[in-house]
């Protein structure tokens, strides 16, 4: 038995099959992830990055192939059944939290990810204390606003909170889909730092989509690049550490769209 925490075998996802709009978003993806892997994912628009995470999380079921999480075959399992393994953060800060519910209620909902929800009081005094301690880490003053609705928070605050919510109950897999893309550069930098801290601290197995190639190279121990639903690059360890933006562009620049290239910033000469 392998020690993969996640294994994809020939996973294929076709949208609008049999119509003029048919789109092969994932084309026989094979991917093995070992515990502790922090994988960054790049690729041009429409390469299939989000679809990959959606298929892993069960938002979409694949048309072909097999998905194993923690040695369980979850290929046909609905999204809510995979929640005990997987925590996610999306690009849009409004997606990860319930705006009309309070900060502490959101945290409580997230703490029970994948667990049975009972007819017991949701935000107990003990939980409230714990949340207040944990929120201090963010240094955003949220620990004093536990009873305020999340809708009052800024995008950056919400995104930081969503990130924190994923670790209240540690997931086997953390899926991040351009989770800093909607934030202003300064906030984005803070959130990405927080991500790095949390991933390292909890040794979280993480898949992180980013459009920023500097980020993709700087963070994590492994990087994959998707193109037209296939894995085009898969580098890890020293090979990844030594890779430069310039090299990636020289080799694969043609398949990357402007956005990604623009996001690279000044390239080392």
């Amino acid at each position, binding site marked *: 038995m392998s020690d993969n925490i996640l294994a994809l075998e020939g996973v294929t996802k076709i949208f609008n099959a049999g119509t003029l709009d048919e789109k092969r978003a994932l084309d026989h993806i094979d991917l093995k992830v070992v515990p502790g892997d922090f994988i960054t994912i790049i690729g041009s628009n429409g390469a299939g990055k989000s679809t990959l995470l959606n298929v892993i999380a069960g938002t979409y079921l694949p048309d072909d192939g097999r998905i194993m999480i923690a040695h369980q075959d979850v290929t046909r399992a609905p999204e809510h059944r995979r*929640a005990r393994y997987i925590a996610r953060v999306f690009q849009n800060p409004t997606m990860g939290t319930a705006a*009309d*519910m309070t900060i502490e209620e959101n945290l*409580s909902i997230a703490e029970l990810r994948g*667990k049975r*929800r009972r007819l*017991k*009081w949701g935000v107990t005094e003990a939980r409230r204390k714990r949340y207040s301690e944990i929120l201090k880490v963010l240094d955003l003053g949220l620990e004093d606003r536990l009873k305020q609705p999340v809708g009052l928070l800024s995008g950056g605050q919400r995104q930081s909170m969503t990130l924190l919510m994923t670790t209240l109950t540690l997931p086997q897999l953390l899926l991040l889909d351009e989770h800093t893309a909607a934030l202003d550069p300064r906030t984005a930098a803070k959130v990405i730092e927080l991500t790095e801290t949390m991933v390292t601290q909890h040794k979280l197995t993480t898949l992180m989509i980013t459009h920023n190639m500097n980020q993709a190279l700087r963070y994590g121990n492994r990087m994959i690049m998707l193109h037209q639903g296939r894995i085009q690059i898969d580098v890890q360890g020293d090979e990844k550490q030594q890779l430069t933006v310039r090299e990636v562009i020289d080799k694969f620049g043609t398949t990357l769209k402007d956005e990604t290239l623009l996001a690279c910033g000044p390239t080392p000469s």
Partner: protein
Amino acid sequence: MLILNILPISLQQGLAYALVALGITLAFRVLAFPDLTVDGSFPLGGAVAARLIFEGVEPTLSVAVATLAGFAAGSMTGLLNTRLKINSLLAGILMMTILYSVNLRIMGRANIQLLDRPTMFTFMENMDISRYIPVIIFFLLVTVAIKALLDIFLHTEYGLALRATGNNEDMIRSLGVNTDNATVFGLGLSNALVALSGALIAQDQGFADVGMGIGMIVAGLASIIIGEAMIKPKTVFRLTLAAVVGSFLYRFIISLGLRLGLAPTDLKMATGFMVILALGIPAFKKSREGKIHLRGI
């Protein structure tokens, strides 16, 4: 003087129909599900309770069965929507229509008189005081108890999941909640409250009628809108309080209208205009500021 005259009747009706407003709040505001089953589940509660009492069943037990019937009806709407993927409005309309025939079958005719049967209200007739007083106290106790239970429920682990289902369904699903089941259960609970109200009101007024649910949703919505205009629903406690207070204010306005010459037959039209006005005014003001934000509408 006029106001004092209509106060008891408004209080009595406001409290009696508050359970309907609470049920509608649960569906529309908490679950964000525009559930139209109510027009059928209200008479369903009345029909089941009336038939059972008529057949000699103990009134309290009859009410319990009627409440369960309401739960079943609401769950059916939920199942039509989540399992068969029928649009939420249509699912409610279908159930409402089906329930019309069901209610006729349950009663065996268009209405059942209960005047000569022992009901939960019978002991109040023999009291030495105006009947209003014990009836109002009774409905007050029931409404306060149900409101408190609902408040507590919506703060439990499962209650939070239910609220999140209405607030951000994708999020709570990714956190492991089967949102389909949550919707089915929530609609069941909502219509159980509505049917409970129907069962109690049938006994209070001494009859159940197949038409007693017509316009119930619109009246409930009017109540909620009025209530939320008075009490900003910033918390669950205030949201349910708004439903109860709104229910009273709505009945008060209606009674006032009737005293001032509004024809009873025009009542539903007036209520409809009230809702249109409340929802429409912001469109005229051309500002989204202060727009009545009713989830589910």
